């Protein structure tokens, strides 16, 4: 299992209700179902990935996250996950609000644009960073709202959202002491556990 998924798994209580926004092929949900016996549901728009979820016996709903979570009751889940999807949303701030309405807690992971590699790329080449991690050109990328660790901290503060835990990892999804000391500079993927105040 990917170390970032391992971190997420640690934060999930056994037998809890989990909603995975942009669940992809359902690998994380399937794992949580197996190890934590969660009652899970995923939202996805890619038809092939939806089919994989169905074949895995997962509950999956075809739904565009930009339309919000209007069909979900307040407090109907214990944890709402948003893994590597935040930066592709039209209104990431609104979806965060929705996450914490529908769920008691949220887990958000995103690529940290404040990482030194992006900074060096932008300052030396003067162009939008393109890498193995962010392989798209600026004009055809699904990632329309990049942010940094400090940006997300600021958003949480503005929205009065409690950060229960925050950790950063590299592209191999491994953490280190230096990354803990300088998360915004060294972290490549940020992982947040958040809750309403």
């Amino acid at each position, binding site marked *: 299992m990917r170390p970032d998924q391992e971190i997420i798994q640690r934060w999930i209580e056994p037998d809890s209700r989990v909603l995975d926004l942009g669940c992809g092929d359902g690998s994380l949900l399937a794992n949580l179902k197996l190890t934590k016996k969660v009652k899970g549901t995923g939202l996805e728009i890619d038809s092939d990935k939806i089919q994989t979820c169905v074949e895995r016996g997962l509950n999956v709903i075809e739904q565009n996250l930009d339309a919000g979570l209007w*069909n979900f009751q307040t407090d109907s889940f214990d944890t709402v996950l948003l893994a590597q999807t935040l930066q592709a949303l039209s209104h990431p701030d609104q979806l965060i609000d929705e996450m914490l309405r529908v769920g008691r807690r949220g887990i958000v992971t995103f690529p940290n644009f404040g990482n030194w590699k992006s900074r060096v790329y932008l300052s030396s080449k003067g162009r939008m960073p393109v890498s193995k991690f962010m392989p798209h050109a600026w004009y055809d990328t699904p990632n329309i709202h990049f942010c940094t660790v400090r940006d997300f901290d600021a958003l949480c503060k503005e929205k009065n959202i409690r950060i229960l835990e925050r950790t950063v990892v590299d592209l191999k999804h491994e953490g280190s002491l230096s990354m803990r000391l300088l998360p915004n500079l060294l972290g490549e993927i940020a992982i947040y556990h958040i809750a309403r105040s």
Partner: protein
Amino acid sequence: MTKALDYFDPSVDYGNDLSKAFAGGDCKFLLVSFSTDWRFPPERSRELVETLLKAGREVTYLEVEADQGHDAFLMPIPRYINAMRGFLDNAYKELVNDAS
């Protein structure tokens, strides 16, 4: 027949609350809607999804692109057929597991 179809309302016996009508039992639900079906359009299926979620039921929902209108459900549209197969395979596996 058409009249019976139009007047059918499973919420009548549950104080007009459809989610209460769905609350009993423990089966899972698969809903598939077709983009050009105006008899049972996707919006109504999304309403059903909302109601099932409110009732705390397990639900899977697909919106299939199809140009055959309401009759699409009679056609061997790969996305629809594959989802049905995947869903029923799992239902069968669960039955066998429960029995053993």
